[in-house]
């Protein structure tokens, strides 16, 4: 679903590469966390996927499309195939909740009838149907993020990428958002989430890819855990949600 092959990128004026020969393969229906400190290259990688940036070398294939062939005129159409959730929500401030979600469908050329049918369903999914007529500034941070998620999933994309979706939210709201992403993943959407929040990563027991200095330094396929200081860690048992059939690995070492 998402394939990066030896992708490198150095921004003009920088001596260190933002991405250094990054290779990555995410299968359909996977839920993947992309973690790492600021400057590790997470955002650059996300921007490569959304085609905000282009790599200096390497290949990126998203949903079967080689991004080398995505010219400027194709970018809007390409982006419509993705669902994107942002840290700062990026909602249209002068449009209501309903209109924000409908916007994603309108730009895809959906008919008014289809939109009137789809938007309430999506708002119900994120539990915001009663807030449909409100403007973003009338909502809490968590609600705004749910609108953002509703907008990104309204077109039922095969891939949803979320850049620090819980960074501005409190613990309880963070849990709600992650649960929602999990629910969407259960419907069959491939999800890639960047985060700093170790609680979020560790409670969900999904694949965790760790980046450092523009490189992937660790890729834990299942039961991934992450500690902010990136030192070799022991999984604290109290923090981990045990699930049947999952053998808990007692020690994981993050490659420096």
């Amino acid at each position, binding site marked *: 679903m998402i394939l990066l092959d030896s992708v490198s990128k150095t921004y003009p004026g920088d001596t260190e590469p933002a991405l250094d020969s990054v290779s990555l393969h995410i299968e359909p229906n996977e839920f993947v966390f992309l973690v790492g400190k600021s400057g590790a290259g997470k955002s650059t990688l996300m921007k490569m996927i*959304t085609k*905000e940036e282009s790599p200096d070398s390497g290949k990126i*294939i998203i*949903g*079967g*499309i*080689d991004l*080398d*062939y*995505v010219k400027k005129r*194709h970018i*809007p*159409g*390409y*982006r*419509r*195939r*993705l669902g*994107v959730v*942002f840290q700062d929500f*990026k*909602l*249209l*401030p*002068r449009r209501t909740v309903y209109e924000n979600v409908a*916007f*994603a469908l*309108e*730009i*895809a*050329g959906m*008919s*008014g009838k289809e939109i009137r049918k789809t938007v309430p369903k999506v708002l119900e999914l994120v539990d915001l149907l009663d807030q449909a007529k409100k403007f973003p500034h009338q909502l809490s941070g968590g609600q705004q993020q749910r609108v953002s998620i509703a*907008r*990104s999933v309204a077109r039922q994309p095969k891939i949803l990428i979320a850049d620090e979706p819980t960074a501005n939210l409190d613990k309880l709201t963070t849990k709600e958002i992650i649960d929602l992403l999990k629910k969407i993943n259960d419907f069959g959407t491939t999800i890639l989430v960047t985060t700093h929040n170790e609680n979020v990563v560790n409670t969900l027991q999904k694949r965790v890819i760790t980046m450092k200095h523009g490189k992937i330094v660790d890729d834990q396929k299942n039961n991934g855990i992450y500690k902010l200081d990136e030192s070799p860690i022991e999984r604290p048992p109290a923090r981990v949600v045990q699930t049947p059939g999952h053998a808990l690995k007692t020690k994981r070492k993050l490659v420096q």
Partner: protein
Amino acid sequence: MTKEEKALKEKKLKKVSKKGLRTMQKNRNRHIIREKARVVKYGTKGFGRNIWLSTAATVVMAITLIILFVTVVASVILTNTAEMMKDKIDITIYFKPNTSAEILEDLSNTIKADPNIKSVETSTSKDEYAKFLEENASSDEIINILDDDMTKMMIDKMQATMRVKVYDVDNLDSIKQIVEEDKLFRAYTDKEKLPTYDVNRAEIATITSWARIARTGGIVLAVVFLVISILIIFSTIRMAIFSRREEIYMMKLVGADKGFIRGPFLVEAEICGIIAGVVAGVISYFGFKFISPKLINYGIDVSSINNVLDSNQLIIVFLIFILAGIVIGRVSARLAVSKYLHKT
């Protein structure tokens, strides 16, 4: 993987990618009309939701349209007034009393040979006397003393005249030459009363330069105001759009096409233009109607503008106002949005 396998895989990937991209293009092309309708809907809603910025842009646009109208009108009425005054100026050539109408006709034909002559009007001594009577008809004192002897004496004393209007008041040398050198003119012109072209020269020169200033100055002023207006409106709309640049970025990130992003901004600017055009048109119309009697009192010729405003052409004037508002608004908005549209 061998080189051949790699090449084959690459070929297949290219084919799949291109097919996927073609499908995306196809889907987009199918919905152009629907997209236009949505652009108009969001543009109209946006105008209401950004009412303060919309009002500011509309007011600035209306003011600049009024300034443009004033400039154009000032240029037209100044030119017309100067032309009217110029038209009033004629050269009067005086002939000996009792020069006959036939001779005046010959003199008239002689001077008409000059291409600078616009019109010639002759008047015999009797005609001049008739004019005198007409002008003084209300004065009983004068009428009472005009007995037959007095009448005869006056006709014998009054010069026959020729009033000449010219195209170019700056170029009177050829006429002067005819008056001074033509045999017939030399024989009949009154040597004691010289033609008026020397007397009026200073006046003629002043009016001519006024007319020239009004014409060229009016054009220059109109162009200067037009440029200033566009710059002011452009800055206002650019500021309005600057405050919404994040919105443009957001729309791009979720996959909106450039036309779909730009469209509502253009519609908003066009609505501003339409309202500004109507407001400016109404203010200009009533403003001019209020001020024109005062201008007429000062001897300024406002007839051409009044003729336009009092006829069916008023609709065209209003349409020009609205069209100017739409065009200026649209061009400004398009330039302002493009700046942020190409950034991300």
